[in-house]
Structures are given as structure tokens and as C-alpha cells.
């Protein structure tokens, strides 16, 4: 990480931590200052993009993988540093940009105006290498902290929405997704369906082989469920051994076909565990949204219907697919034909 070379006081250990590209944008109309900045920053192992005016700086910052550290001259033709700061800050999306404003004026009002326009820091000309290095280093530190924060936030967001054991959506998340997709499908007039699947005789597996084996079975079944649906369907762990799948743009008959495919795929071969192969089957209840407008079934009703059908499947001995009663009245595919 340390690229310090003895005998050269200009070197700076600015490593490429946390995946941040080591790049910097310089916007400076004066060729002397542009060259000085470019020369020093390159010496410190930065990838430098140098432009001569504010408009070119704006364009460079809009590109994909644009530098996140920008050194902007206050006085530039066209778009000056202050206007550029404001324009960048008014842009809501995108990664945070650290803006270092260069000024030949040192008055307090100017500094305040610059910071209020959105600059993170400022540097007064003529600056020396040590000062620039210290300011750039501070900027990198902020960007690195921000990167870590975003990463932690994303990880937390994933954890908050996913089931730890299986990696599927957790109950809260799958219900949120169902709510959202139910509304969206109704709005664009597409059919939506839900599939509730439950592992048959899971308690016996736990009792006979222990909870660790039980967990391994759950993980494998979750995987098989995921593999038997389209990659844009949502599979969640609804409860202990109960899985809820939300399928968008899926007609009632396709819903039945998918459910049957899930049932067959899960039971086709036994699950390999540390305690040997264990044959598993699932029971499935499904419900299709068959109304629009004011009659739109709420997501709780859909889940309740699928649950009722699931109980019917269990009552008939398990390892089978059942429709909710509402589906039977509107769907030409018969539940008896699904077995």
C-alpha cells in the first residue's frame, strides 16, 4: 500500500482502498496551474483528467466512472467554479463528489461563498505541494469513509430483507414485494399469482436427523424452488418450512404449471446431507389475482387463499398442488388434473 520512495518527499501513499478509483479531475483555465496540479497529482499516482473550463468539467463528471475528487478553479470562462459546485450539488443521484475549490483570493467572504455553493474545501493560490497533498488526502479520506458507509448501508439493507439461513427474501420483504407487485400488476392489467409451498413432514426430518440436517434440507429446497421459477419471480421464506413465491405477468394456468414444476423438481431426487440422502416432498397451494379495480384482492387475502389451498393439499396426503376455491370458479384448469 505504501508507495513512499526514500529521497523523494513528493510521494504520497494514497492507495486504492475500498475500490475507489484513484482518479481526480482538474478544471483550471490557466495552463501553468493546470500543469502544476497535473504533474503533482500524477506523481502521487492519481489518474488525472485535466480540462480547461467549467463546461468540460461538468461533462467529464457526468461520465460513467467519473472521478469523485474534483479540483475546480474559481475563475474560469463559461461555467466558473462556484456555479459548477452548485450544479453538482443540485444533482440528486450519483456517488458523492468531493469538491476542492481553487482561489487566488483569500478573503473570508469568498471562502464562505465557495463553501456555501457546495465546495468541501478550498485552496488559495499560490499553494505548495504539501498543502495540496494534505487537502487531497483529506478529500480521499472523506470519500473512503463515504464508500464504507454506503457499503455498510447496502449490507444492512440486504440483511434486513433476506432470510439468513436460505438467502431468500424474508417474510417482511416478500410481503412488501407482493404488495408492490399486486398494485403494479393491477395498474398495468397483468395477472399475478402467489404460490405457497410447504415441506412435507419436516418435523420428522428434524426429529430424526437433527436441526443441522433440517437446516441443510431447507437450504437445498430453497435453492430448488429458486431454480424452478423465472429469474424475475420472487421467492421468500414465509415461515419455518413455508415458502411464498410471487409471480408477475403469470396467468392462472401458467401458475399451475409452475407450481407443478416446483413440486416435481423438489421431490425428483433426495437431498444430499451430511447424514445421507433424504427424500423430500412439498405441498402447494396457489392463488391467482383474478380481479381488478375496487375488487382487487389485497395481498393478505391472496396469501390466505393460497394457505387454504395448501391445507387442502396437506389434507389430501401432501406432495400435491391445490388451487384456492376462487381459482376453481374462474380457471379452466382443474386442480384434479394437476396431480
Amino acid at each position, binding site marked *: 500500500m505504501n508507495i513512499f520512495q526514500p529521497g523523494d518527499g*513528493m510521494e504520497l501513499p494514497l492507495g486504492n482502498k475500498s475500490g475507489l478509483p484513484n482518479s481526480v479531475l482538474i478544471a483550471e483555465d490557466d495552463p501553468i496551474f493546470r500543469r502544476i496540479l497535473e504533474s503533482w497529482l500524477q506523481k502521487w499516482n492519481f489518474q488525472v483528467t485535466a480540462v480547461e473550463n467549467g463546461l468540460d468539467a461538468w461533462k467529464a463528471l457526468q461520465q460513467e466512472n467519473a472521478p469523485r475528487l474534483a479540483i475546480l478553479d474559481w475563475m474560469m470562462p463559461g461555467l466558473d467554479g462556484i456555479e459548477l459546485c452548485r450544479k453538482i450539488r443540485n444533482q440528486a443521484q450519483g456517488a458523492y463528489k468531493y469538491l476542492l475549490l481553487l482561489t487566488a483570493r483569500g478573503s473570508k467572504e469568498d471562502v464562505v461563498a465557495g463553501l456555501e455553493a457546495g465546495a468541501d474545501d478550498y485552496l488559495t493560490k499560490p499553494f505548495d*505541494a504539501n498543502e495540496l497533498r494534505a487537502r487531497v488526502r483529506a478529500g480521499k479520506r472523506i470519500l473512503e469513509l463515504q464508500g464504507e458507509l454506503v457499503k455498510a448501508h447496502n449490507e444492512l439493507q440486504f440483511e434486513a430483507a433476506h432470510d439468513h439461513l436460505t438467502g431468500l427474501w424474508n417474510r417482511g420483504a416478500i410481503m412488501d414485494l407482493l404488495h408492490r407487485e399486486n398494485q403494479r400488476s393491477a395498474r398495468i392489467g397483468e395477472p399475478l399469482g402467489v404460490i405457497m409451498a410447504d415441506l412435507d413432514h419436516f418435523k420428522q426430518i428434524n426429529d430424526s436427523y437433527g436441526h443441522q440436517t433440517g437446516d441443510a434440507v431447507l437450504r437445498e429446497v430453497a435453492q430448488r424452488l429458486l431454480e424452478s421459477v423465472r429469474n424475475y419471480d420472487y421467492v421468500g421464506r414465509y415461515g419455518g418450512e413455508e415458502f411464498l413465491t410471487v409471480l408477475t405477468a403469470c396467468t392462472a394456468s401458467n401458475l399451475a404449471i409452475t407450481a407443478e414444476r416446483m413440486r416435481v423438481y423438489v421431490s425428483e431426487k433426495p437431498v444430499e446431507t451430511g447424514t445421507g440422502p433424504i427424500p423430500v416432498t412439498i405441498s402447494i397451494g396457489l392463488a391467482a389475482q383474478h380481479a381488478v379495480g375496487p375488487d382487487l384482492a389485497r395481498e393478505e387475502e391472496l396469501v390466505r387463499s393460497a394457505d387454504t389451498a395448501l391445507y387442502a393439499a396437506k389434507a389430501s396426503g401432501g406432495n400435491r398442488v391445490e388451487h384456492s376455491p376462487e381459482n376453481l370458479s374462474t380457471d379452466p384448469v382443474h386442480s384434479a388434473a394437476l396431480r
Partner: protein
Amino acid sequence: MNPMVFGGVQCSRSTSSDLQPASCANSSGQAIWEKAEALKRLGGDEDLLRELCQIFLEESPKHLQKLREAIADADAQATMRAAHNLKGELGYLGAAGATQAAQELEDMGHQQTLSRAAEVFTFLERELASLHIALRNSDGASL
């Protein structure tokens, strides 16, 4: 010779006979440019300094021309900008007398009082001429 005072820096009108070789003083005893100071600011990077001097030799006549036009047009805003740009570069090279004059012109532009601008400009022009000679002489030899 009547000394003229520009913002506290005392200098005398330079004539062509005042132009002296590299890193010598102007007639007021002030160095045309502080090479050591400039080099120090650049962290001792002589290659970079040579390159910057080259850029300055090419660029400063353009700035000076802009400044001349701005003053002739009595355009305070343009005077301020052109003087500002020159000041930055001159300051970097440690050309104290010229920097001071550019600073005065910038201030005049800022305050929109250009009555003495032509006078200061003449001084700046001469300082720059000396600086050009000093930089050229310095280039390659001692650098």
C-alpha cells in the same frame, strides 16, 4: 529618475538599459523573479519549473494583450480578469514587482477605477519584458 510607488513597492521606470541578465535585480534593487522561491514551491522539481517557464513565455503575451485591450476599452471587468490571471502566474514564479502591479490592476478593475491603469500597465509591461529575458537566460543554463 523619479521613483514611482505602486502599492508600497518602490520601483523606478525601467528603460531598456535597465534590463539585466537572469535573476538580477531591477533598478529598485528587487529581484525580477525569485527562482529559488519558485523552485522551493515546486518541491525542487527543476524539470517542472523549466516546463512552467516555457508555458509562461508562450502564454503571458496573450494575457498582456488581453489586459492591454481591456484597459483601452475601459472594461473594468475584463481588466480584473486578465490582471487576475497574470497575477496568479507571476506569483508562482516569485516575480514580486510584476505580481504587485498585476494585483493593483486587478484591484482597479474590481473598484472600477481605471484612471491610473495605463500607467501601471506600462510598468507591468516593462517588468514582464525583463522577466522574459531573465527566464530565457535562465532556461537551459542554470536550470
